């Protein structure tokens, strides 16, 4: 009986702790949302929690003065094309590492894993020089799509996933005379769909929220992505446009929340891959 009583206490504490924690987790979202409907002075006056006279003026100003639609489109198509290309190349590489034996495979795999530990900042300076002087890619989406297109984490993730693709199925397709690339497209990709979805969500999210590299290579406002636009609303002390910033922040979070609520399962599968097995 005493043990059960203790459990009840632990349970009560657990619920209380989770409630406090989730309040902490949710509060910035709530504050972002209520502030986005407040005029600039009211955000700092702090007399009431909810906006006294809710206004959409911040949202309107964001679109009229800062061409937010264009920046959302930039973010969307950069994230979209980077995701499609990366997922495809990672699936291709992962498939080769999982289902073929070839000379140098283990060495190549080790090099690939080791490359994951190189921090981006180490290559940032020369990569920027390269983008500007060799490719002329400053103010274009290419630096955000091409260099990271076949990334090591993605190939590693897809390899783990492809290991479970049945060899019999592949051999059957070979006997039917399908080309290796045809097998990849028509047999492997469809069976790996859940894995592709996980990877796609992770890549899309990373690209959508990316800041450091776009800040370096997207110089002129019409080319900005959403996080860079938000950063550009920053001014000298007291002059940062927090009203427009909060409206923009709300809009930047919404697509991610939609993705999360519909595809949560895939996202979590992607995050946990490697933590247990690897």
């Amino acid at each position: 009986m005493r043990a059960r009583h203790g459990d009840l206490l632990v349970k009560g504490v657990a619920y209380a702790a989770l409630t406090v924690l989730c309040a902490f987790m949710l509060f910035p979202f709530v504050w972002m949302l209520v502030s986005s409907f407040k005029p600039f002075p009211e955000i700092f006056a702090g007399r009431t929690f909810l906006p006294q006279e809710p206004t959409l003026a911040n949202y309107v100003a964001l679109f009229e003065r800062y061409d937010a639609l264009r920046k959302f489109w930039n973010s969307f198509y950069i994230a979209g094309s980077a995701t499609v290309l990366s997922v495809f190349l990672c699936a291709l590489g992962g498939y080769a590492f999982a289902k073929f034996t070839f000379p140098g495979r283990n060495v190549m795999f080790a090099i690939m894993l080791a490359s994951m530990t190189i921090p981006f900042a180490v290559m940032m300076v020369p990569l920027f020089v390269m983008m500007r002087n060799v490719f002329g890619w400053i103010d274009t989406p290419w630096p955000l799509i091409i260099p990271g297109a076949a990334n090591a984490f993605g190939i590693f993730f897809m390899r783990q996933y492809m290991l479970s693709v049945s060899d019999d199925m592949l051999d059957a397709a070979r006997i039917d005379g399908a080309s290796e690339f045809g097998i990849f497209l028509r047999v492997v990709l469809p069976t790996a769909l859940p894995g592709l979805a996980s990877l796609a969500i992770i890549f899309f999210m990373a690209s959508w929220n990316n800041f450091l590299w776009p800040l370096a290579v997207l110089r002129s406002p019409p080319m900005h992505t959403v996080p860079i636009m938000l950063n550009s609303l920053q001014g000298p002390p007291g002059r940062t446009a927090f009203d427009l910033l909060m409206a923009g922040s709300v809009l930047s979070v919404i697509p991610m929340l939609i993705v999360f609520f519909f595809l949560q399962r895939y996202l979590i599968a992607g995050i946990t891959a490697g933590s247990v097995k690897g």
Partner: protein
Amino acid sequence: MTPAPSTTSTPATLRVAGARRRGPLHALWRYRWPLLFVSPFFILFAVFSVYPILYSLYLSFHEWRGIGAMRPVGTANYERLLGDRIFWNSMLNSLILFFIYVPLMTFLAIVIATMLHGNFLKLQGLWRALVFMPHLTSMVAAGFTFRLILDTHTGFANRALTWLGVSPVPWLDDMWWARISVGLLMIWAWLGYNTIIMLAGLQTIPTEVNEAARVDGANTVQVFTRITVPLLRPVILFAVTLSIIGTFQLFTEPYILTGGGPMRATETPVMQIFSSTFANLRFGYAASMSYAYFLTIVVLAILQFRLVSRGDR
């Protein structure tokens, strides 16, 4: 579960052809498909990682403002870097930040994962989603929101504290409080991520282990400290390693929340590399900085690995 032996992976037709002719070119032809499939990674890796890293080494022995001719300066950049207190201060800041948020975050992640594991609590999916939600947010958006909330004079945090009768806190205006504020933002953003990793680890622990301990009379807290945490060790190490790498790559959070201030208390190495390149146009110096930064991380990683493997003996 283990993949079938590799013989099935080599197409029958190719095996027949391979028996007749030999030579490196032929091997290349024989393995053309897998080599072709992995080539995008290695081509992109060579062009956009290996080459830049080598070029960076070259750059680090030169003085260059990004345009015009480079001036070879020998080891001058590295000599100056050794005495650059601002740079080493930024490295120290990363270390301090690591100790401010990683132990607390890891502990919380294990506790929350334990609470959300099994059928202990109701509404598991909801709690998990709420804890994870911040991780989806752009750090720029989150950073500005935190800056608004934590503002010493007009922020909600201090209003709430005053209302509770606690004296207000100089969240972003004091060196140590600013570090704590960055840590708070990091915990907010990364706790859910770490919780998910710990949850995945917990799922690999057989429930019989916990039940056996229960039968032997262990209470909830004892099961947690004596069974859960030790069995979770590999996963905890994985999460902490990710946190070390993450802390040394910090840029957006302090850049937006504190701008590196006050008095450079929250400035990170990546911020230093960024401003040397894009604000001061000292490309060669920034390159030497990124090398020193990289070497330090490698040394730290080796040290951590040593420490961990000694613990295993």
